[in-house]
């Protein structure tokens, strides 16, 4: 994993990167792209979270990368195995949109905001500060985390690229 390497994180997937490699996840709608970053090690991690809580899972084999409450601890474990220290970590995230806003009624329709809330709760459990976020709205996002600089960039159709 060296500079210029692109590591793709799929839907309901997570991964870590160092040495200047870039983590990328595409087409986030109501899903949340969460990143953790250890500035000292220049080590980054990214999870593409799809659903808020593993309590609703009916899977035979639980995909822990999929749910906010399980993805955060797993990403943390993966980063610690590379030497990351929880107290040094900072979090950034994007996504959690409501792609189709016409019916606010049922819980499923509010899945974007619920994913954002659940991710924040999971971060609080480990006292990891969320330093910036670009969440909500009704549009899709593609996000990248540069493991060298810690820069989190967000691309959308309407607003182009921005960095947080």
């Amino acid at each position, binding site marked *: 994993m060296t500079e210029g390497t692109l590591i793709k994180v799929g839907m309901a997937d997570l991964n870590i990167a160092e040495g200047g490699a870039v983590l990328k996840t595409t*087409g986030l709608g*109501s899903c949340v792209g969460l990143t953790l970053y250890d500035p000292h090690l220049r080590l980054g991690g990214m999870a593409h979270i799809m659903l808020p809580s593993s309590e609703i899972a009916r899977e035979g084999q639980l995909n822990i990368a999929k749910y906010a409450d399980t993805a955060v601890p797993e990403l943390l474990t993966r980063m610690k195995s590379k030497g990351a220290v929880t107290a040094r970590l900072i979090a950034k995230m994007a996504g959690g949109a409501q792609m189709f806003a016409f019916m606010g009624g049922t819980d499923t329709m509010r899945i974007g905001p619920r994913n954002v809330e659940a991710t924040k709760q999971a971060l609080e459990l480990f006292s990891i500060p969320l330093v910036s976020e670009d969440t909500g709205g009704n549009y899709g996002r593609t996000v990248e985390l540069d493991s060298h600089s810690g820069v989190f960039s967000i691309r959308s159709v309407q607003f182009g690229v921005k960095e947080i």
Partner: protein
Amino acid sequence: MNLFRNNADFKLDVLREVGNIGAGNAATALSTLLNKPVDMAVPTVNLLPFEAIAERVGGSEAVVVAIFLRVEGDAPGNMFFIINREPARRILQGLLGFNAAENDDYSELELSALNEIGNILAGSYLSSLADFTGLRMSPTVPSLAVDMAGAILSYGLLQFGTMGDDALLIDTTFLEGHQEAEGHFFLIPDPESFEKLFRALGVPF
């Protein structure tokens, strides 16, 4: 999914036929709207990993025009009519008779027309399906988005998300002049709906 433990091939055939009937009617409706022939490919029924679903319309980041409807009633699910921007522009040209936006700045009128097209197509798809199965199926008001395919389609996969990393979708491609894809119709029945669909069609579950 344990859906296909018994009679897998037969069930897939039945679902393909479900797509055939619904999309056939929708293609006829689109043909009438545009006053020209619209063909459709034989529907495919796929159990696909989430990652692969957006690939069917050009990839997760491909910008598409999507009309989404929730199917309510006896066999709930999600329905998407997805068209790429160029065919969408041609449809608008054919329908409204003036040069539609070259870029992504669709006017209110154009968006409204696209929404209505989605509404008509989905309505004809569902009503033929409801007639055929005897199930009550009704579409909600449609909602339109012009955005990344991944962001749009992932929304239709949430019901499957709690069960695994794959979703079953019935995909019909609309063709114009036997080559260019005019659009895609995705019917993604909720996991719970399959049993009802199969029972309604006399397939042992």
